[in-house]
């Protein structure tokens, strides 16, 4: 693996599109070659910036309307303790059985109680 090969493969590498041995060869080169490490860092940062800047907070009202649409399609979708302001994904399975994952997901949404 030389620097030219690194440049040619870096995107496939970051996309997870390389075979295992090639992936390892690229990792090894990045670790051993400071200039390529800089380039690798740039591309990683670039993706993070694009992903962060293009993220969207789902407005609470939109979330509510989507849940309401699901309830209209199937009344069984209604959780046992569903009430207006609590209408969000975590509530749909009822308060006793909420999983920690969903709890975390719901609390991670800053607009959940807006």
């Amino acid at each position: 693996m030389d620097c030219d090969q690194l440049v040619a493969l870096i995107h496939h590498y970051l996309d997870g599109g390389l075979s295992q041995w090639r992936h390892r060869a690229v990792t090894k080169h990045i670790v051993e070659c400071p200039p390529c490490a800089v380039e690798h860092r740039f591309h990683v940062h670039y993706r993070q910036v694009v992903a962060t800047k293009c993220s969207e907070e789902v407005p609470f009202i939109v979330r509510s309307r989507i849940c309401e649409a699901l309830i209209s399609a199937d009344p069984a979708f209604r959780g046992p303790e569903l009430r207006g302001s609590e209408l969000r994904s975590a509530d749909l399975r009822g308060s006793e059985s909420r999983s920690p994952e969903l709890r975390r997901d719901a609390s991670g949404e800053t607009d959940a109680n807006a």
Partner: protein
Amino acid sequence: MADPATFADLAMPHMSGLYAAAMRMTHNPADAEDLVQETYLRAYRGFEGFHEGTNLKAWLYKILTNTFINTYRAKKRRPEQVDLDDVPDFSLYRRMGGLEAVAAARTPETEVLDGIPDAEVKAALESLPEQFRMAVILCDIEQFSYKEIAAILDVPIGTVMSRIHRGRKLLQSRLWDYAVEHGLAPAVEPAEEEDRPPAGVVTGGH
């Protein structure tokens, strides 16, 4: 009908990502909401046919994409025709001066990127031809594999890779144009666009 609790558990956490993708595809909040709502309704109806262990996130994005193509886009008279070969070679990293810029402690590239407002990055992404846009969203933002993207878009893996590659170049060139126009990056053409100094020249070896 699907088990409501399981569906809520598995599908609802993906709403933010689906909504963001829908915003980039439809360009407006009302259509994005409709698209996401329709996606969830279809997913819920089809949930019984969904086997646990298969990729629910990819399945949701496939429904989103199909719904977009079949309902939303069908209404638009503008059939997006792009010359898929007409994408100039571009690398933001090279254009920013690559390693030389870092070594010379000029504006770090990361600052240029960070300085572009969210709305401009969104607009740049939305300006990409639809085929490229979806591929870039699925790869760079949602981090699906080539194989998953091929399944979502229903195209061969080679096509997926080509769309991602070209979409990325286009997006980077548009971000660069914005950075130059707004003084975030110097408006100078680098002497050697696609070359960088050999390893060791700038850093003094390692």
